[in-house]
C-alpha cells in the first residue's frame, strides 16, 4: 500500500489498516463484533522524519439490536368460498436485527373490529396453521410447505414467507370477513433445530460485552420494543347467490303462423329459464338447470339453447345448442354465470 506524498512532504504512514471483507448488512454490523480505532502520527523533527507513533487502541463491542417486521403481503384480502379448505393468507417475516435469531410464531383470530382490508370481522376460519414457504415460490403448496411454530436461525436481514392456512366454514355469505393475525417474537438464535430461549433485554448497568437492545416498532397488537411484531390479513367470502325465473312466449300457431300467434293446440311455446347471479359475489360455474316439460305439451327436439343472454329482463334469441331431453325433463349445464350476470336456458314445446 503506497501513500502519495503530502504537499508538505510528509513521510509515509504505517498505521493503515488492511481492509478485510466485512459484509455490509442493511440491519447493520453483526452483533458482538468489535469496533477498534487506532490513529497514528507521522512527523519530523529538525527536518528528519521520525518513526510514526500509534495511539492506544480504543475498542468496544457492537451490541445486539433486536428488530423484526411482520408484514401482510399483497394489500388485498384473500377471497374465499364457503367450505373452502386450505385458504391461505400470506405474510413475510424479516429479521432486521444485527444477529441470527429464532422467531416464535403465533396466529390468532380477532373477534369483531375492522379487518385488515376493511369490513368487520364476523367469523373465524377453522384449523388455522402456519406454514413456511419451503419452496420459496410465494404460493402455499399443500404437502410441500411445512407447518411451523417457529422459524429457526433466521439470519440478519433474511426474510421468510409465511402462510396462515385455514378452512372456511360452509354457509358463510358474500361479504363475510375473517381477520387473522400473525405475531412473531424474537428468540435466542445460535442453536439450530430447536427454538431458542426468550430474549432478555439488557437493563440497568450496561456491560462492555454484547448487550441486547429491543428496537422493534409496534405492530397491530404488540408494543414497540418488545422483540415482537404483528400484522393482520383477512379472508373475505364471495359466494354465488342464484335466483331462477321462468317465462314463456308463443312463437307461432298453425293458423296465424308467427303473426300475433295464439296459444292454441299445435302452437309452439318458447320457455326461457333465467339464472341470475347476484352482483358482488363470486361467479357460479357448472350451473345445472333442469325443467319438466308441462303436461299436455311435447318437447320440440333439439330446441334447447344454453348460455343465452337477457336484455331488460327479456330473453334474447341467442345461446348455443346443447343440453338434453330425457323422461319428460329438459336439462342443461351453463358453464359460468358471473356475479351480476344472468344466463338462460331456452327450449321449445308444442301444445298438444
Amino acid at each position: 500500500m503506497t501513500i502519495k506524498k503530502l504537499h508538505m512532504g510528509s513521510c509515509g504512514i504505517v498505521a493503515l489498516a488492511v481492509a478485510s471483507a466485512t459484509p455490509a448488512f442493511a440491519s447493520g454490523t453483526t452483533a458482538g463484533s468489535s469496533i477498534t480505532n487506532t490513529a497514528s502520527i507521522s512527523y519530523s523533527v529538525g527536518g528528519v522524519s521520525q518513526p510514526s507513533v500509534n495511539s492506544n487502541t480504543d475498542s468496544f463491542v457492537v451490541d445486539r439490536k433486536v428488530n423484526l417486521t411482520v408484514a401482510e403481503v399483497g394489500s388485498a384480502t384473500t377471497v374465499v368460498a364457503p367450505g373452502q379448505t386450505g385458504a391461505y393468507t400470506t405474510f413475510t417475516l424479516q429479521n432486521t436485527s444485527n444477529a441470527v435469531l429464532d422467531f416464535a410464531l403465533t396466529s390468532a383470530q380477532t373477534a369483531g373490529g375492522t379487518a385488515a382490508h376493511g369490513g368487520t370481522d364476523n367469523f373465524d376460519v377453522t384449523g388455522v396453521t402456519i406454514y413456511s414457504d419451503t419452496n420459496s415460490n410465494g404460493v402455499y403448496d399443500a404437502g410441500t410447505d411445512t407447518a411451523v411454530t417457529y422459524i429457526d436461525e433466521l439470519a440478519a436481514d433474511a426474510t421468510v414467507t409465511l402462510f396462515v392456512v385455514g378452512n372456511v366454514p360452509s354457509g358463510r355469505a358474500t361479504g363475510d370477513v375473517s381477520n387473522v393475525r400473525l405475531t412473531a417474537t424474537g428468540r435466542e438464535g445460535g442453536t439450530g433445530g430447536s427454538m431458542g430461549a426468550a430474549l432478555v433485554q439488557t437493563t440497568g448497568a450496561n456491560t462492555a460485552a454484547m448487550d441486547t437492545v429491543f428496537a422493534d416498532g409496534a405492530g397491530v397488537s404488540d408494543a414497540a420494543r418488545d422483540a415482537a411484531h404483528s400484522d393482520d390479513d383477512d379472508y373475505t367470502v364471495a359466494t354465488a347467490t342464484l335466483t331462477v325465473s321462468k317465462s314463456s312466449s308463443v312463437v307461432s300457431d298453425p293458423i296465424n303462423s308467427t303473426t300475433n300467434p295464439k296459444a292454441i293446440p299445435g302452437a309452439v311455446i318458447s320457455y326461457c329459464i333465467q339464472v341470475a347471479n347476484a352482483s358482488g359475489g363470486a361467479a357460479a360455474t357448472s350451473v345445472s338447470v333442469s325443467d319438466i316439460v308441462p303436461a299436455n305439451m311435447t318437447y320440440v327436439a333439439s330446441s334447447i339453447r344454453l348460455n343465452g343472454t337477457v336484455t331488460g329482463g327479456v330473453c334474447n334469441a341467442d345461446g348455443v345448442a346443447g343440453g338434453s331431453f330425457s323422461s319428460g325433463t329438459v336439462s342443461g349445464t351453463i358453464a359460468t354465470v358471473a356475479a351480476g350476470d344472468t344466463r338462460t336456458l331456452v327450449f321449445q314445446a308444442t301444445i298438444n
Partner: protein
Amino acid sequence: MKRMISIAFALSLASALPGVAQAQSANAVAIDSNVMVERTTTDTAGRSQTMLEEPRVVVPGDKLVFVLNYRNNGVRPATDFVVTNPLPQAVAFDGTSDADTSVSVDGGRNWGQLATLTIRNADGTNRPARAEDVTHIRWAFQQPIPAGRAGRLMFRGVVR
C-alpha cells in the same frame, strides 16, 4: 505506547483541551484515541439534550464521536505533523469540522476532499464518493507543533 486519559462521562465538546498525560516514552509525540457515543435524550419537559457517553450499549445506527488528543512531548517542534485515522470497518464516516483534513476512499492510496474523490463502479464508470465510502481520515498540519503543544482532533461516524 499505552496511555489513558480519564474519560468524562459526559465529555463536553467545548471544554478545554484535556492534557494528555506526560508519558515517559521514547516517542516525542503522543496520540490518544477515544470513541464516544452521542445520545440525544428528551427530558420530561421536552428539552432534548445531547450527551457523549462511553460506548457501552452500541447498536447499528448509533452516532459515534472519535476524539484524538495529540501532544508534542519533545523539546523541539514537530514538523510535517500528520495524524491518520483508518476508519474501523463497521463505522461510516459522518464528517468533521476540523480544518486541514483530507480523506481517502481507497484505503489510503489517494487523498483529498470528499467532493473531489470518486469511486469506480463495477462497470468501469465512476461515481462521486460518499461519506460512507471513506476509509481513512487525515489531518496534515501546515504549521509545526511547538514543543509541549497539545491539541484535539475530532470526527464523527455512524455504526453501520
